């Protein structure tokens, strides 16, 4: 276990509780912060470990391309889906990946509005995580259509066929929600990057790197007027992204809740989906942050305080998810509806019961260890707990999608669902896409927001007599 720093004076002059780690370890200056983050990208040589990790995930990504090529050639029949289980891994993975993205927006937008200084060192890579997770998610609705080359029919545009999309369908709401979410997340990420790219431009020695970062920085020069507009636009984006992130998983849950399938048609779905999204997203943040802070030596910027806070958010959202599961069982009983009641009995005791009880174990029982402070301050245990939660949240979507569909209203239409190797290949492939993108990101972009870290320093604050308006 890592040693909790004894000091109570943090670099940011915040007041600390006894034994609490600071957000930024003392001793940093404007120069050291800049140098440390810049050197990760511009000075550090490419290591064998990085190459090996990247090669592994890039291999998985290529497996996905192969599986998708086969899918386009043969059609969705290569997957395990059938009638009645028309929604299989594709929707499970879609919901899982979109959910993971939500923590990035929560950290960058909601915690910004709540003035949580601890977000400053983890928001950048959490936003990158959002972008890559949404990219993984977006592929599934596309490829599950069967004829992905016609996916643009989902968008309303004047066409010679004279048809328009059905605006009352939750599947179309999804198109708007997810594409808006991807666009706003990309804008938010890029706007946050501009001043740091200017720092890279001014620090890079390699002329090629200097030119590329210079083009991306668009001539940013840190003018006071520009900063004022910048701050204004940034806070507005945060304000816009906050309701957006809550709406996206709400709309995803509408895909289920608007239907009349037993187990899907409940009003608890939107809030419990949003909580589940943040739950799995923070788990992914920790799965990324714990190795990154260790291998890149940024433990003084991503301190135990960050891990502790993220674990607390997981604990809180995990309890909301537990409430959702309880309510599902209660609704089944209280509705007095025979199909709802049967659905729940089948979910808990039927052929897919193993998945349901694994989900309860992984998502509700094991994460209760986060109540213990020692676990929250132990990166290795937190890493394991986060992996368990990620797997549990994937199972949750699997249970929701499959158990409700495989036992329909009519026993004559009952079926079974078994995923094929192509299902697994595509899913593993998106993990490859996600992680190889993250590997590239930490080597090409500032993974910690430099200018926001500078603002955490006490020497960046104006003294009172200067700040006073005269």
């Amino acid at each position, binding site marked *: 276990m890592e040693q909790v720093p004894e000091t109570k004076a943090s670099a940011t002059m915040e007041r600390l509780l006894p034994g609490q780690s600071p957000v930024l370890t003392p001793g940093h*200056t404007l120069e050291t912060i800049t140098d440390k983050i810049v050197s990760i990208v511009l000075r550090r040589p490419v290591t064998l470990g990085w190459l090996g990790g990247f090669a592994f995930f890039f291999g998985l990504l290529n497996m996905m391309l192969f599986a998708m090529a086969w899918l386009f050639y043969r059609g969705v029949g290569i997957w395990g889906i059938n009638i009645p289980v028309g929604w299989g891994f594709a929707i499970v993975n879609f919901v899982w990946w979109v959910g993971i993205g939500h923590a990035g927006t929560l950290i960058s937008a909601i915690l910004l509005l709540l003035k949580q200084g601890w977000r400053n060192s983890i928001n950048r890579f959490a936003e990158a995580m959002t972008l890559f997770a949404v990219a993984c998610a977006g592929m599934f609705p596309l490829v599950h259509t069967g004829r992905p080359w016609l996916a643009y029919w989902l968008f*309303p545009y004047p066409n010679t066929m004279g048809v328009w999309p059905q605006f009352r369908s939750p599947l179309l*709401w999804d198109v708007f929600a997810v594409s808006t979410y991807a666009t706003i997340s990309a804008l938010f990420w890029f706007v946050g990057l501009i001043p740091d790219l200017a720092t890279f431009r001014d620090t890079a020695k390699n002329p090629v790197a200097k030119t590329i970062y210079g083009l991306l920085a668009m*001539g940013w*020069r840190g*003018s*006071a*007027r520009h900063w004022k507009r910048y701050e204004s636009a940034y806070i507005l984006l945060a304000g816009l992204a906050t309701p957006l992130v809550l709406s996206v998983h709400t709309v995803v849950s509408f895909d289920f809740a608007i239907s009349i399938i037993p187990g899907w048609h409940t009003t608890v779905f939107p809030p419990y989906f949003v909580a589940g999204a943040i739950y799995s997203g923070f788990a992914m943040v920790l799965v990324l942050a714990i190795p990154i802070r260790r291998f890149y030596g940024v433990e003084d910027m991503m301190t135990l305080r960050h891990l502790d806070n993220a674990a607390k958010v997981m604990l809180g959202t995990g309890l909301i998810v537990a409430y959702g599961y309880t309510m599902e069982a209660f609704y089944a009983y209280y509705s007095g509806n025979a199909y709802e009641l049967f659905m729940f009995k089948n979910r808990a005791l039927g052929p897919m019961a193993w998945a349901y009880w694994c989900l309860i174990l992984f998502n509700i029982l094991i994460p209760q260890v986060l109540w213990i402070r020692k676990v929250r301050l132990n990166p290795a245990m937190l890493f394991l707990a986060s992996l368990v939660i990620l797997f549990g949240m994937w199972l949750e979507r699997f249970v929701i999608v499959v158990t409700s569909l495989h036992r329909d209203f009519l026993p004559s239409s009952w079926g079974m669902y078994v995923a094929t190797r192509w299902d697994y290949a595509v899913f593993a492939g998106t993990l490859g896409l996600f992680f190889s993108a993250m590997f590239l990101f930490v080597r090409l972009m500032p993974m910690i927001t430099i200018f926001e870290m500078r603002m955490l320093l006490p020497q960046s604050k104006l003294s009172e007599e200067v700040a006073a308006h005269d």
Partner: protein
Amino acid sequence: MTEPGSHSELFPVLHGVVAEFETPDGLVSACKKAHAAGYRRMDAYTPFPIEEAADAIGYEKTQVPLLTLCGGILGGLSGYLLQYWVNTSAYPMNIGGRPLHSWPPFIIITFEMTILFAGITAVVSMLTLSGLPQPYHPIFNHPRFSAASRDRFFLCIEAADPKFDLDKTKQFLRATDAIDVAEVAD
């Protein structure tokens, strides 16, 4: 800045006089003094946002929020009207006898379009009002300007200012906490 062959020697048109500071305090108090002395065409350059610096040089209001609001309203209206037009006249579909103008399901796309347009407007207006992307700006002729994205703070009083006088302005800036005062070519 007149090393032989340098940019300022070849094109000796003055952009302004630049003072360099080590602390945000030094910069902001110099900005206030400069504004009080009547200078208006000036700009401060900092490695992180200092709102007081913008206020001190007399830039207190940005139009980004208003434009964002307009963008949001435009997005919301176009989202709703598109659905209204498609469902009532372009492609009316009777689904289970529901009214063609069934507004509750239209709200979601209206909301998403509001956010989309407002967000894009916020970013585009921030960049265009600031004149970015901008391939060339004379302030980069300052030999130490790369520190502005690192740990130093700069104040530039531009030659275009009606009160600008090379010697007097230089003297004025030297009287502040500046650690260095230099001329920068246009």
